[in-house]
C-alpha cells in the first residue's frame, strides 16, 4: 500500500493545470463556433464529442485520476471491464464505473420508455 502513489499525493504543477485550463477554454470555443456553422446532424456529434473530451480532461487531470496509477493513462473512459481486470487501481475502477453507470441509467430508462410506448 505504501508504495502506491495515491491520488492525493500528486501535486499538480501550475503549468500543466494552466495547459488543461487552456485546452478546456479552446474546447468551449470550438463547440460554440461549431454551433454557428450548419453541419446537419454533425452539429450534435461535434458538440457532444468535444464535451466528452473536456469532461475526460477534467476527470483525468483536475480530479487527479490520471495520477492514481502509472499504468492507467487514458483508460478511464475506455472500458470499465478491462480496467477492472487488468489494472487494479481503485479510483480508476470507480471512475470507469461512473461512466458505465451513466450509460446504464440512460439505456435502462430508454428501455423502460420503449416498453411503455410499445404497450400504448
Amino acid at each position, binding site marked *: *500500500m*505504501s508504495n502506491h502513489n*495515491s*491520488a*492525493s499525493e500528486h*501535486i*499538480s504543477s*501550475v503549468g500543466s*493545470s*494552466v495547459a*488543461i*485550463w487552456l485546452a*478546456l*477554454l479552446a474546447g*468551449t470555443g470550438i*463547440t*460554440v463556433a*461549431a*454551433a*454557428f*456553422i*450548419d*453541419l*446537419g446532424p454533425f*452539429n*450534435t456529434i461535434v*458538440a*457532444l464529442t*468535444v*464535451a466528452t473530451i*473536456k*469532461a475526460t480532461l*477534467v*476527470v483525468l487531470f*483536475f*480530479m487527479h485520476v490520471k495520477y492514481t496509477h502509472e499504468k492507467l493513462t487514458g483508460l478511464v473512459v475506455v472500458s470499465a471491464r478491462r480496467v477492472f481486470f487488468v489494472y487494479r487501481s*481503485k*479510483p480508476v475502477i*470507480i*471512475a470507469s*464505473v*461512473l461512466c458505465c*453507470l*451513466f450509460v446504464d*441509467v*440512460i439505456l435502462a*430508462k*430508454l428501455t423502460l*420508455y420503449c416498453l411503455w410506448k410499445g404497450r400504448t
Partner: protein
Amino acid sequence: MHTSPAAVDEHAHENPALLHHFATEEQQKNAASLGMWVFLAQEVMFFGGMFCAYLVYRYKYFADFGSASQQLDIRLGAINTVVLICSSLTVVLAVRAAQLGKRMALVFWLLATIFLGLVFLGIKADEYAEKFEKHHVPGASFSYHELLPGQEKLPEAERQYADPHHAEMYFSLYFAMTGMHALHMIVGVGLFGFLAYMAWRGKYTPDYYTPLENAGLYWHFVDIVWIYLFPLLYLIDRHR
C-alpha cells in the same frame, strides 16, 4: 480501543487529524476518497435520469425542442461555461496551495472559487429573470408563440408555430436540469465558504487536506455536468 501506554505514545507523534478508528493516515484518506466517489456515483445516476428524460422528449418533440432551445442566449451560456472552467482551475490551485502548505494562497484561491461560483449564479439568475419576463417558465402563466425552426424563410401565411405544450416540456426540463445544477453550485459555494474559514484558521496542512480534495472533486463534477448541459440545452439545436 484498548491502548497500552506504548500505543498511546505512538499516536502522539502522528497527525492530530488522524481519527482513532483509522490505522493510518492513508487508510483514512482512502476511506474518505472512496466515500466521495460513491457519492459522485449516485450523483451521476441522479443527473442521468434527467438527461435521459431530455433525450426522450427531444426525440419525441424534435422540432418544438429546436424552437425552444433557440430562445436561450448562447452568449450567456458560453460565458458561464468559461466562468465554471476558470473556477475549476482555481480549485486545482487551491488544492495545490494546501498540499504545499501555503495558507494565504489557499484562502485566496478558495475565495476566488466562491467569487466565480457567484458570478455563474448571477448570470444564471439573469437568464431565469428573462424567462420569467417572457412567460417561458412552465406553469399557469406559460405562453409560447414562436416559429418552428426554419419557418422564417417561408411566406407568412404558410409559417408553422411550435406547439406550446411541447415547448413547455423543454422549459420544464431546462429548469429542472439547470436548477438542480444551480442548487449544486449553491451547495458548493457554501462548502467553499466553510473551507475558506477553516483554512484561514489554519486547519489544513500538507498532512491533512482531505476535505479540500473532496470538495474539489465535487466542484469538478458539477463542472462536468455543466460541460454536458451547455451543448445539449444551448448549442445543438442552433441549426435546423
